[in-house]
């Protein structure tokens, strides 16, 4: 078993008086892909956003519990959020490109962290675009507005932008649900390719997708982590009746 990258212990989140996540404990192995599935409003997105502490942007959000990344307690008050978010990248459901050029989109993160050298920036941008399998489609067009790209290309651009700050963990919040099947398949391929090099936590509504790309799958319901295990086991022989009910389409 590989080293533990992310460890959560009794993590709970409330939005005001409304509990969103209750006492979730889990480990994610380094280099693994963890898929989070469950009905709408079950807390998947909250679980994702607590790992980079983006959940704190929501007014009245309250977090309890402990989370370690590489053994470092990231929920402690004096934790440097900039350093945390450099290590933990995120891709959202809607493909998001800033209203800048393709180049400036990818260079956004490195520039935030003080990279100014034009040659080095170019190298990082090219490398990130290659990693996100977008380079061949945009080479020579880096100065064009990113909004001219298709939805699937923009999602790969978002991945390139996240990779450009050289994270170790990548959070994905339903990264393919706004894409056509072909573009979705390309993102899935990329996730499989990133496996090993990055630790990926991915929320998905698409069970087949979870089965195809993930090593581990966690099932959430009403803010609780009902079951977590190897994907092959969860999908073929879930231990909990609720997981089985969800997988067979009885809950949604």
């Amino acid at each position, binding site marked *: 078993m590989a080293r533990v990258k992310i460890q959560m212990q009794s993590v709970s989140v409330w939005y005001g008086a409304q509990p969103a996540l209750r006492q979730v404990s889990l480990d994610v192995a380094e280099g693994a892909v963890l898929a989070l599935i469950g009905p709408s409003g079950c807390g998947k997105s909250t679980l994702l956003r607590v790992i980079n502490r*983006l959940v704190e*942007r929501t007014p009245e959000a309250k977090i309890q519990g402990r989370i370690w990344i590489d053994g470092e307690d990231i929920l402690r008050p004096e934790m440097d*959020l900039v350093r945390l*978010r450099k290590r933990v990248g995120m891709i*959202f459901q809607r493909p998001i490109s*800033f*209203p800048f050029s393709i180049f400036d989109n990818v260079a*956004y993160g490195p520039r*935030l962290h003080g990279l100014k050298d034009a040659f080095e920036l170019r190298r990082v941008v090219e490398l990130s675009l290659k990693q996100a399998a977008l380079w061949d489609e945009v080479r020579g067009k880096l100065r064009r507005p990113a909004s001219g790209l298709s939805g699937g290309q923009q999602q790969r651009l978002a991945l390139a932008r996240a990779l450009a700050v050289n994270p170790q963990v990548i959070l994905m919040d339903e990264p393919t649900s706004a894409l056509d099947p072909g573009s979705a398949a390309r993102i899935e391929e990329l996730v499989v390719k990133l496996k090993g090099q990055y630790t990926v936590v991915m929320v998905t509504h698409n069970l087949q997708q979870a089965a195809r790309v993930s090593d581990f799958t966690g099932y959430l319901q009403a803010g609780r982590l009902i079951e977590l295990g190897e994907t092959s086991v969860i999908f073929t022989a879930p231990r909990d009746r609720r997981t089985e009910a969800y997988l067979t389409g009885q809950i949604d």
Partner: protein
Amino acid sequence: MNIQEASRRRSERVWMGVVAVASGLVFTVLGFLVAVLVMGAIGFAAQHGLVHTLLGARWQPLAGRLQIGLFIVDSALVTALAMLLALPFGIAVAIFGSLVAGAWERTVLRWILTLASAVPSVAYGWWGLAVVVPGIRGLGLGAGYGLVSAGLVLALMILPTFSVLAWEAILAVPEDWHQTSLALGANDDQNIIRLVLPASMAGLQTAFLTALARAVGETMAVQMVLGGAVSHFYGLFGPGATLTTQILTDMAVLPVGSPNHGVLDFMALVLFLGVTLMTGTMGRQVRGRGRP
């Protein structure tokens, strides 16, 4: 076709008619306005010469000396001063209101700005007379009536409008852009400077142009603190007269039908064309550069 649909179609036709008449009326009135100005202005320019009128600074309407160069310069200076002052404060207020303030502060600030933008300009002029003019005089910078005083009063007057429009422009940046930026490790300042301001640039420039147009055309608040020097430039702290204030001043001296009334048409046309050209060219640049 049933009865319901027939009545729906009839009411649609009625509404189309109302809209057509209303927009026709707007164009007619606007066309009439421009036509009156152009006719008066052409008649005047033919008599006095375009260059002579625009570039000179002698203004004695009863003696027939009608050169408006100084008014153009003063209009430009007062407006530039006002915009220069209002721009940084307005952006700051907009950023605070839209991104920094809590719900309670936001509501109060918004209420104050809405109220302040509804205050009639004569009240701003009055404030200028009561506060700005004595203040400048107290600093030993002349009589207090002058271009800087007018710029200050004007800046305060357009600040609420500009702030509210800039606020809206900043709010138009979608929440998930903020989240994307923050998730990449941007701190709040970086998020504002590198994402929010560039991303809302088109809206900010629209806000700027709207405020600019209002500033150029403002008459009353400016007139009350400007001092009214018509034939000599006395410096930034000295008195002056703008196109708008001088039209107001000499309306009584050169009434409609009097021989040199055309110069007022000419000044109004210069003002009209100036604002149109300025907002037009800047607006085009915005659209060229803005959100692709």
